């Protein structure tokens, strides 16, 4: 066991029978299950980690838990993870790590681990499985309430994992822990989660926690088992029993490796059976460090002296002094010595103002040691309480910020609220657990376990925020570290106050104290104390900075959960989608939908495919899956009246069996959505919406119905997926439709434009067939139940095979509609366009009111020179203008370097027209309708392109083709 020279011969919560290999910065070490990387390093006698971030000073392990400021690791492997404290990484065989100087490395290797979530509801959530939390969970669970107990450590017990002599109900404390955990685990409604950190507390007792599920296993996780799981817990009641963190002391050279928190030393001795030193000095301001002293002695480590800042011995100090340990009251360690590690400390006496009295040089005593254990008092872990705006109060006696009052539905228990003695923690925990269960509706009584510890009552604390340097003024104390990870010192705080800064938030920002990985766990309160010392006053008058989630850092991947890759965002597809895929469609994303953009044949690029598809639609027959359009059934006696109010044009008198194009606007008069609406019968309409607008339009209709016009007899039902919609387009479409719908008289006379018919297809499928055209060609839209959508598509495809029926996508659809000047909401409009701007004055009723109407008489909306949607024809007949191209007047100097170039508008849509044999565009141009026939300039990059302004309808303006 020479590889672990500092491992004690017995004790500890480690499995000595199993030896695990570990590599730290290339150095091979060993350890045991139960170890952390830090405890294994200390067992090997290795204390040092990478040097500090800015000043390159030697640094060592300071703590034993999440508050560790120095020992940060990159855990190496297939995909490394940085910035993990060595004190929290469980040892597994073959682990390889690199220590970091506060600066991590992001591994470009893909992270293939699984991360997931879990939603949980509970009556009582207890955060922290130390004595208070265990007592709370135990008491609450006895009520039958649902209880979840979380703890960040590898096993329950909290501070008791580090204890030696403490007892509960007369037995060793860890026996009690085992019993309570066993009872909880056998309770049907209790859940105990270790390695699970509650990192955020949100409104209405919504607590989020991250569970580390696989890294400690030491073997690959089962397939599908998440590496980390984020628990979303909604709790009727929350008990916060998150304990407290010990504070270090601020003095010269306090960053030297070998300065450890006293409680951490205790943890290494008792939990990990590691004695990280052979001769220790303990420097404290309070009683808690005396447990470390007695444990050191019990472990056979020489305690050279206890330096107690308090002027007189507390009962506990006196008790320990009585065992023969040298206790020096009224003093502090003023400096450490040593090269890469502490080899001694200088001790000086403090006067009542905390100053070094007398002849500093003469009175300082040097004590040789290889470890200095420090305790500057305790800071309750109030993060979760504070994240919910729970208030804090400075307690002068405890020298700590403690919770003031409670957050609704929450209690804080144990050392998290400043109750630092074991008995008190157990009592408070029990009481909190009972109260939480009762409040959640599960009456119970419970008697608190009785706890005993060597340190009974938590004795007096001396507030000692900075131990004076032996020389100079605070502004010169560049080795009195306040924040180890950020390399910030008393001198830095003084520089901030010297600049005029008075508040802790400013000092934090000036110095960066408290902003590192540890978020000030060991530095924040000390910084407040130092600032108080600098400005005069108490820490309570300075106050704290805000506590924010997460309590400890959480990886992005854990938060993302399964919403990555294929599951990042739903892809919505129609029943015909598999056919599109099988036929080589290239897709376009529209909202969450995937729509075929074009169907290239062998060797075709998009232009060739679109040209072919367009030709088919204009000369033969083509078909498109239009199922993504939103569809809403609007029923009720007042349906017509309702539609009159929400659409700019009238619908009330639309005959049954007919269709009408409608535009709806926002109250500000700008176009919101459009679509073709059918009157199914007297009281039933079927609206269609844009693909992206479906959900929004339904919400919009419901909002008006429910909140403004509840008196209307109208019901809206979304039927988007109920109907598969297939557009059959082109001069030969009538033939194809006639073949699949033989019962239907498809003649132009019997089945005129903008009407629809219900029929049964030859295949027996009921269908609603509309004569609607978004291309200007003779066209039909065949609507069938989604159950039969794919089958009917295939029937149409087969029925038109001899006519070379051609499936087409959104790109061709856009070309066809643009040739006819039909705008696409969201492409040719952008939220600033009225129907009049879009050239659709004809769709705006002058005889009825509707949402948005009032806005058209406002000064800006009534302007004549608003941007109008018009057509543009590049004069060279060759240039296809990029969409987005800006339009300027002829002879406008293009000298943006001398000031903005006046712009008239921009190209909203631009295509090559197979039908026109030339490129063309739609554009929004200032006063565009008054410029028809003028030549303007489309500024394409640095090249001006002459464009002729035309009306928006460029193809078949007479509308001769719609009847075939």
């Amino acid at each position, binding site marked *: 066991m020479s590889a672990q020279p500092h491992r004690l011969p017995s004790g500890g919560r480690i499995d000595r029978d199993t030896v695990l290999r570990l590599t730290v910065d290339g150095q091979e070490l060993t350890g045991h299950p139960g170890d952390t990387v830090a405890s294994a390093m200390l067992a090997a006698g290795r204390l040092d980690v990478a040097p500090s971030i800015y000043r390159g000073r030697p640094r060592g392990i300071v703590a034993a838990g999440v508050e560790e400021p120095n020992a940060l690791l990159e855990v190496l492997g297939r995909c490394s993870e940085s910035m993990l404290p060595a004190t929290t990484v469980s040892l597994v065989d073959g682990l390889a790590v690199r220590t970091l100087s506060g600066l991590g490395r992001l591994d470009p290797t893909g992270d293939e681990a699984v991360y*997931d*979530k*879990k*939603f*949980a*509801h509970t009556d009582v959530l207890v955060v922290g499985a130390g004595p208070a939390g265990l007592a709370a969970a135990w008491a609450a669970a006895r009520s039958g309430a*649902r209880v979840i107990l979380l703890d960040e450590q590898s096993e329950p017990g909290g501070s008791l994992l580090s204890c030696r002599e403490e007892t509960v109900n007369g037995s060793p404390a860890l026996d009690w822990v085992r019993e309570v955990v066993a009872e909880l685990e056998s309770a049907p409604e209790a859940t105990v989660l270790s390695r699970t950190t509650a990192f955020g507390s949100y409104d209405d007792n919504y607590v989020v926690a991250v569970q580390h599920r696989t890294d400690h296993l030491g073997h690959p996780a*089962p*397939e*599908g*088992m*998440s590496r980390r799981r984020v628990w*979303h817990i*909604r709790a009727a009641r929350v008990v916060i029993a998150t304990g407290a963190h010990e504070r270090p002391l601020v003095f010269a050279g306090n960053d030297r490796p070998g300065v450890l928190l006293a409680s951490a030393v205790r943890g290494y001795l008792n939990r990990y059976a590691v004695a990280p030193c052979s001769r220790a000095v303990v420097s404290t301001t309070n009683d808690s460090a005396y447990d470390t002293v007695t444990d050191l002695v019990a472990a056979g480590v020489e305690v050279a002296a206890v330096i107690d800042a308090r002027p007189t011995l507390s009962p506990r100090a006196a008790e320990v002094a009585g065992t023969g340990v040298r206790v020096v009251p009224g003093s502090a360690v003023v400096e450490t010595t040593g090269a890469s590690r502490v080899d001694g400390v200088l001790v000086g006496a403090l006067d009542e103002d905390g100053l070094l009295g007398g002849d500093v040089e003469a009175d300082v005593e040097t004590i040789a040691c290889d470890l200095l254990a420090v305790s500057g008092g305790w800071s309750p872990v109030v993060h979760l309480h504070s994240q919910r705006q729970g208030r804090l109060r400075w307690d002068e006696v405890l020298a700590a910020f403690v919770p003031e009052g409670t957050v609704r539905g929450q209690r804080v228990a144990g050392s998290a609220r400043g109750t630092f003695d074991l008995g008190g923690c157990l009592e408070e925990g029990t009481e909190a657990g009972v109260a939480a269960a009762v409040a959640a509706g599960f009456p119970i009584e419970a008697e608190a376990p009785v706890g005993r510890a060597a340190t009974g009552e938590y004795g007096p604390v001396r507030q000692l925020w900075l131990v004076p340097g032996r020389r100079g003024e605070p502004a010169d104390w560049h080795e009195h570290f306040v924040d180890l990870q950020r390399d910030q010192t008393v001198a830095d705080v003084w520089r901030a106050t010297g600049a005029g800064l008075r508040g802790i938030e400013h000092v934090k920002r000036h110095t960066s104290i408290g902003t590192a990985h540890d978020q000030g766990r060991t530095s924040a309160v000390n910084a407040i104390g130092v600032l108080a010392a600098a400005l005069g006053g108490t820490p309570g008058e300075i106050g704290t900075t805000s506590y924010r989630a997460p309590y400890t850092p959480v990886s992005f991947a854990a938060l993302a959960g*399964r*919403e990555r890759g*294929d*599951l990042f*965002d*739903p*892809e*919505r*597809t*129609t*029943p015909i989608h598999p056919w599109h895929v099988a036929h080589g469609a290239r897709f376009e994303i529209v909202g969450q*939908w995937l729509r075929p953009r074009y169907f290239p044949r062998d060797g075709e690029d998009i232009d060739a495919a679109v040209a072919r598809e367009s030709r088919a639609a204009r000369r033969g027959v083509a078909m498109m899956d239009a199922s*993504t359009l939103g569809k809403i*059934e609007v*029923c*009720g*006696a007042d349906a017509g009246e309702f539609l009159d109010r929400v659409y700019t044009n009238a619908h009330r008198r639309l005959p049954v069996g007919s269709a009408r194009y409608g535009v709806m606007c926002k109250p500000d008069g700008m176009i919101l959505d459009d679509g073709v609406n059918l009157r199914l019968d007297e*009281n*039933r309409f079927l609206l269609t919406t844009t693909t992206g607008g479906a959900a929004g339009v339904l919400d919009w209709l419901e909002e008006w119905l429910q909140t403004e016009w509840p008196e209307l*007899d109208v*019901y809206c*039902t*979304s*039927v*988007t*997926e*109920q*109907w*598969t919609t297939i557009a059959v387009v082109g001069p030969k479409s009538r033939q194809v439709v006639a073949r699949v719908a033989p019962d239907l008289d498809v003649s132009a006379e019997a089945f005129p434009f903008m009407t629809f018919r219900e029929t049964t297809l030859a295949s027996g499928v*009921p269908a609603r067939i509309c004569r609607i055209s978004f291309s200007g060609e003779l066209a039909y839209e065949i609507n069938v*139940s*989604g*159950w039969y*959508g794919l089958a009917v598509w295939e029937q149409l495809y087969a029925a038109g095979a001899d006519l070379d029926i051609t499936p087409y996508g959104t790109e061709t659809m856009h070309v066809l509609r643009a040739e006819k000047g039909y705008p696409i909401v969201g492409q040719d409009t952008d939220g600033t366009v009225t129907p009049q701007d879009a050239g659709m004055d004809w769709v705006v009723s002058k005889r009825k009111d509707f949402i948005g109407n009032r806005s058209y008489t406002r000064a800006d909306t009534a302007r004549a020179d608003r941007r109008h949607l018009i057509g543009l024809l590049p004069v060279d007949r060759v240039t296809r203008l990029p969409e987005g191209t800006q339009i300027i007047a002829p002879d406008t100097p293009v000298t943006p370097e001398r000031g903005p170039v006046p712009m008239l508008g921009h190209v909203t849509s631009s295509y090559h027209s197979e039908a026109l044999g030339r490129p063309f565009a739609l554009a929004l141009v200032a006063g565009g309708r008054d410029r028809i026939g003028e030549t303007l300039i489309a500024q394409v990059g640095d090249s001006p392109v002459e464009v002729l302004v035309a009306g928006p309808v460029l193809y078949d303006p007479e509308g001769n083709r719609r009847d075939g």
Partner: protein
Amino acid sequence: MRGARGGSLRELPFSTMVSVRVAPGSAAFDRIGAALGAGLPERVADTARAGAHTALWLGPDEWLVVSSAEPGPLVADLVEALAGDPGTVVDVSANRTILELSGATARQVLEKGCPADLHPRSFGPGDAVTTTLGPVPVLLWQSGPSTYLILPRASFADYVARWLLDAMTEFA
């Protein structure tokens, strides 16, 4: 798909679904209830089953009737029961897909993405709620002690099925 620990997922195709909107307590409400054979349920999460039909509460004046009967005749019956009073009956059989998740771990699978409280004290066989599964709105209906029906809009069905299969992997 089936897993070693008894989890399975399948689609239940071609179920009839009808959306019913009617004012609770009205005569038409009673007539529709009678036509279905069991009154329309009046509380959140409630379902009412009679013969081939189950009515699921979706809102204070909205129900989804899921049935093994043919859509056409059922819609016609319900339209007749509504009898022109305020309300509506719409065939939505193809609007949603029905996925059935069953097995001892079904609840655990759902709890990876469903924020509703599925604990037996809050939710049990015969309960149905609108909620979300991952990023998708679904109607979740517990049809048996360890069987859940998940009804997303049909366009989301592929995603939801993939989501569920992924969540089931751990228990396979």
